[in-house]
């Protein structure tokens, strides 16, 4: 997500654009053509019209230009802020609001000052620009880069929380767990249930959500995965079972919370300026700190504790670990609990980052989780961390050059390319790929 967009969601501007939108809707139908400032409306079959308002006050003398299909025209808004431009063909045109003709301190806050306009079924269409308070700043490429790097780091750390769990599960059981995405969503939904539906304070709701996620992981292992392991079900079969589970859980979430988006409390906190034009919100900072602390704790657990060492031993060679007296089933159960708790936590952070909680929010980052795990090296916990950071940074920084609706594509393309050159991933060992 771009910071520019996020800052524009500050409450004041949001209200302004809301008012403008409502005004546009209510006044447009009754708009009489005589008062609006018009050009070329007579003699042309089609026209664009609009209404320029700021804080529900009409703005006079704002220059609107239209171009496209070899046609150009411009008009200034009238006393009532209205404008109307006739066009010869029912095609798509570029409509530009000249921001230099706006009063000082007012800019177009939603979308660009130039937008593509096209006709629907009728012969006229309305084009409205949402104005708000702001300063026309041309952010330097350097500042943008730093901003995106921070965002990417935040996203990458959050992704790492989810990816480490999935990677540990893969390492110890060989399962590529597609339902991991739903464990991410589960954490966010539990936070929603306790903090919003039951109005618990956040500092209580979030830990409870994480604990419930851990319990969810335990239930899944005890109720589904362990019995299947006992039956000796094949790895591919388990993978498809996890797909079925993922579908079922996803729609169970939709069954209960519907198709809408919910916000957690505190998701619209004010942004703080770090340096230059780099802005972060308080939730961003808290989220990064929490991720780093938790990731360090997991690293310590893996490197220093008996269970952590046993986990790595099983990832390396399960039968050898079992032969040397490690209780594989117990370790796998702990890995499921830990993985689910981490996924739940990452879901809560992801809910703040997106922002919003939706029934399929986890599924939308599942592929990035897989990309991170594969990039880092399948089954290696630290590989998942490295892979996540790379994917997170790549996703955010790539928006400097490619359209933001393609930002996941960059990460996925790199995944495919890395497999071409180094299929074992960055930290993986060559023998793994067989």
């Amino acid at each position, binding site marked *: 997500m771009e910071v520019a967009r996020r800052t524009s969601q500050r409450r004041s501007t949001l209200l302004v654009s809301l008012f403008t939108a409502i005004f546009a809707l209510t006044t447009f139908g009754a708009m009489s053509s005589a008062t609006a400032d018009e050009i070329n409306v007579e003699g042309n079959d089609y026209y664009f019209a609009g209404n320029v308002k700021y804080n529900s006050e009409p703005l006079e003398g704002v220059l609107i230009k239209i171009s496209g299909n070899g046609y150009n025209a411009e008009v200034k808004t009238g006393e009532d802020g209205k404008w109307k431009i006739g066009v010869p063909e029912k095609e798509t045109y570029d409509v530009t609001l000249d921001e230099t003709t706006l009063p000082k301190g007012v800019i177009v806050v939603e979308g660009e000052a130039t937008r593509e306009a096209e006709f629907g079924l009728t012969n006229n269409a309305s084009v409205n620009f949402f104005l708000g308070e702001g300063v026309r700043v041309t952010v330097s490429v350097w500042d943008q880069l730093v901003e995106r790097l921070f965002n990417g780091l935040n996203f990458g750390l959050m992704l790492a929380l989810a990816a480490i769990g999935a990677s540990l599960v893969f390492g110890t059981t060989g399962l590529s767990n597609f339902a991991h995405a739903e464990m991410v969503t589960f954490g966010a939904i539990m936070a929603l249930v306790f903090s919003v539906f039951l109005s618990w304070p956040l500092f209580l709701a979030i830990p409870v959500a994480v604990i419930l996620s851990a319990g969810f992981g335990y239930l899944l292992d005890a109720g589904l995965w362990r019995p299947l392991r006992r039956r000796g079900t094949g790895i591919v079969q388990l993978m498809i079972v996890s*797909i*079925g589970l993922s579908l079922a859980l996803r729609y169970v979430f939709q069954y209960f919370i519907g198709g809408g988006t919910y916000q957690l409390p505190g998701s619209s906190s004010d942004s703080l300026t770090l340096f230059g034009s780099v802005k972060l919100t308080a939730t961003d900072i808290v989220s990064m700190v929490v991720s780093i602390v938790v990731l360090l704790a997991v690293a310590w657990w893996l490197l220093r504790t008996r269970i952590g060492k046993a986990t790595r031993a099983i990832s390396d060679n399960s039968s050898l670990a079992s032969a040397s007296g490690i209780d594989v089933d117990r370790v796998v159960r702990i890995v499921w609990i830990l993985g689910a708790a981490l996924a739940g936590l990452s879901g809560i952070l992801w809910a703040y980052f997106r922002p919003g909680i939706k029934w399929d929010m986890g599924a939308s980052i599942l592929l990035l989780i897989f990309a991170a795990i594969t990039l880092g090296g399948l089954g290696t916990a630290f590989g998942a961390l490295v892979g996540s950071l790379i994917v997170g940074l790549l996703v955010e920084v790539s928006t400097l050059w490619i359209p933001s609706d393609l930002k996941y594509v960059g990460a996925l393309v790199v*995944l495919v390319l890395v497999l071409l050159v180094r299929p074992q991933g960055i930290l993986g060992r060559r023998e793994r790929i067989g």
Partner: protein
Amino acid sequence: MDWGSILSNTAAYLISPETIAYALAALGLAVHFGYTGLLNFGQAGFMAIGAYGYAISILSFDLPWWVGIIIGMAASVVFAFILGIPTLRLRADYLAIVTIASAEIVRLLFTTQAFDEYTNSADGLGNYHAGFRAANPFTFEGNVGFGPWVYNANGWWVRVFGIALVIVAALIVWLLMRSPWGRVIKGVREDEDAVRALGKNVFAYKMQALVIGGIFGALGGVVLALPSAVVPSVYVTSLTFYLYTILLLGGAATVFGPLIGAVIYWVIMAFLSNVLPALVQIGALPFMTTTQSQVLRFILVGVALMLIVIFRPQGIFGNKKELTFVK
């Protein structure tokens, strides 16, 4: 409750374009997964390429409709090569991850604003029917048919064309799988190293299987696009998962499994989508709303997929001796 209309709406899905399209795509998946053991999780991408290849060549390049279908198929062959070259030499789960990622890349590229001129981004494509309808051999006016299957000339043309494609595709798969080529393919699924030891080029065989199954996937996409429009939100990852449900329901390593599976899947989905809201309305299901009853269907799909894989992995028609799952 109006059982008449419920049953007639359900029966319509026996030969609906959706059923035919899913059957074709699932047949392609049978070649990939059932016979060759390739974990292709990107069949939705192949379908999207078929549908968009067809629609874009007609809308943007004014080509005849049958050239559009050929272009859709050719594009899916290219896609299969792009997928196969990096991954077919690697372990099975790498192919799974790369195919699922590539299908998503394809979908995002079709949905992005950047190529709006050709793809119409998230709004999808429509109004490319003139050529296909002009080729319609049926000339009758109005609606013709019996029972629940009453359609106009265009409706019948889409269905007959689609069913003809399914029959040809099923015949091709049946002939291929009883040929020496098919035996090698099944050998690759059972034990790659043994086949390699016999001097076969396993990589080439896998690639051929990927291309053939991909073409069927693209044809499925074309049939899905034929009656009305190309809707980008259809070609999501879940579509591939529904196809796996269909395939495993019928039997992965069979010719008729995916076809019967598609029919069963759509008939059950149509039945539930008609009967559940009706049950809600008469108050038989007091704990849910009509919207929730539609969501319930997809929960059942997920649960069904799990149960099939756990308890009857060979599907309805499959032979338990034929190991359909790579160990």
